[in-house]
């Protein structure tokens, strides 16, 4: 965890309202899949708080994020151009655990969850992962940014591209009982919950990467709490997470 004096290298639209930004990473500390960074989008006080984004890739002094334009901070990011400075703190949080046994890693991404899943897919390419990428409709799929040469199933809610249905529908259709899967999911909470339920039924392990509004992003404020089964009943997404064993989470 460090202040990073980053500079924008590239910042392009990769799907409707989705952008991929690459920026210099002048630090020894190499980010790993699952980890995130925070950006102070503006020197003014609106937006006030830093915003968290997951790494979507890292090679050799160049880091990337894939982000959706949602509100003030991401609109400011989307307007940034080459060489603009970027006020970054990172890498933060824990990582997707690399599968140790012989199971097949199945990586499931939806919405703003695609970044960290793509990063992880590249990272464990040697484990022959299966990638499942979902979106509401075709235009929201960042086809260009998807890792190449990895078995990928696309799914759209409206059937405009790939499988017609949700990513969890894909899992249900694809899974057969002698499959030995390890699930990794990142995306909207309903998707994570459905993934968790699928995993529980099929008795396969599932790792989920969670989102929660953050204050400090370093573990100091207790703002980013999520309900978990152990301890005092809460864990911090920024510190104990963002990646959790899905069974630890109290799903609501």
């Amino acid at each position: 965890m460090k202040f990073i004096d980053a500079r924008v290298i590239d910042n392009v639209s990769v799907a409707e309202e989705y952008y991929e930004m690459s920026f210099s990473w002048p630090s020894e500390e190499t980010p790993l899949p699952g980890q995130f960074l925070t950006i102070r989008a503006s020197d003014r006080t609106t937006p006030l708080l830093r915003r968290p984004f997951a790494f979507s890739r890292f090679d050799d002094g160049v880091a990337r994020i894939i982000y959706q334009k949602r509100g003030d901070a991401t609109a400011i990011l989307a307007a940034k151009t080459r060489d603009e400075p970027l006020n970054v703190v990172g890498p933060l949080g824990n990582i997707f655990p690399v599968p140790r046994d012989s199971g097949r890693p199945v990586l499931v991404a939806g919405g703003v969850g695609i970044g960290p899943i793509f990063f992880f897919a590249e990272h464990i390419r040697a484990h022959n992962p299966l990638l499942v990428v979902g979106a509401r409709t075709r235009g929201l799929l960042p086809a260009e940014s998807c890792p190449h040469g990895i078995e990928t199933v696309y799914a759209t809610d409206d059937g405009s591209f790939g499988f017609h249905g949700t990513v969890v529908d894909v899992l249900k259709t694809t899974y057969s009982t002698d499959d030995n899967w390890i699930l990794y999911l990142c995306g909207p909470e309903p998707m994570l919950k459905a993934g968790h339920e699928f995993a529980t039924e099929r008795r396969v392990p599932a790792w989920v990467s969670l989102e929660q509004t953050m204050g400090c992003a370093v573990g100091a404020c207790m703002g980013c709490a999520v309900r978990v089964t152990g301890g005092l009943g809460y864990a911090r997404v920024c510190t104990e997470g963002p990646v959790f064993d899905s069974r630890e989470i109290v799903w609501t």
Partner: protein
Amino acid sequence: MDLSVKIGSTTFTNPLGVASGTFGYGSEYEKLIDLAEIGTLYTKAVTPRPRPGNSIPRIIETASGLLNSIGLANVGMVGFVEQKLPFLATLSCSVVVNVAGDDPDEYREVVEYLDRHDTVNTIKGYEVNISCPNVKCGGLALGTDPRQVEQLTRLLKKTTDKPIIMKLTPNVTDITVPARAAEAGGADAVSCINTLVGMVIDTSLKKTVLPAGTGGLSGPAVFPVALAMVYRTARAVTIPVIGLGGIMTADHAVQFLLAGASAVQVGTANFVDPNIAVDVLRGIEKYAETERLTTIQDFHTFIE
């Protein structure tokens, strides 16, 4: 130039602190900034028993502000002594422990326990949170009643020899009333402000964003309110006033000092940029130098 500040028996080397609840127990920011640079670290509130905190979500951004409903989530006094105090003991900055409880006896219990277990004198004072808007008992209700403020102050002064700083709530008609009550009870200083009660509603879900309904507003939005309160408080009591609320720049901090504060704390701004606290201290020093002010008292000579 000597901008040190004396509060009770303790001398704080410089007027800068990081506010309770925004800096954890120090270790969280260790990798980002040099903790030796900040004057005083005010810990997250410590209560007798561990508290899980309020339901989620707990924070939401507002215009130039932050609304929080953390609910005093903390490890409790035993956990604090075991897990947090050893690290704090290694720091060269001063450590003040923020204390909270459901009733006066709980406050006393924490102070007594911590005093007993602080064998190497790490704790340089207690800041008594009688102003948290996010818990039912203690907190806000206690802080708005001058009689209770005075009694609690007196009780804690009897419990410890370390400085007692009473942290006042801005959610009152006249902040000088609890301020004077704290002074009457023997407080060594008062700090103000804690957060303003606020609310945000999610119009698509048609419910309050924070499950608790209201939360506490902090950040630059509240700065003018905090400054007016510190100004009034500094004219009502003779003990030192510690000013906080919305500090984002050295200029804000200098405004607090000119208004009569003897020290300041940076809170929400630590989230925005962990560098800000140290920048604020540097800026105060630079201002003092340029304006030829050599002590904190010098700041108090300009505004009536």
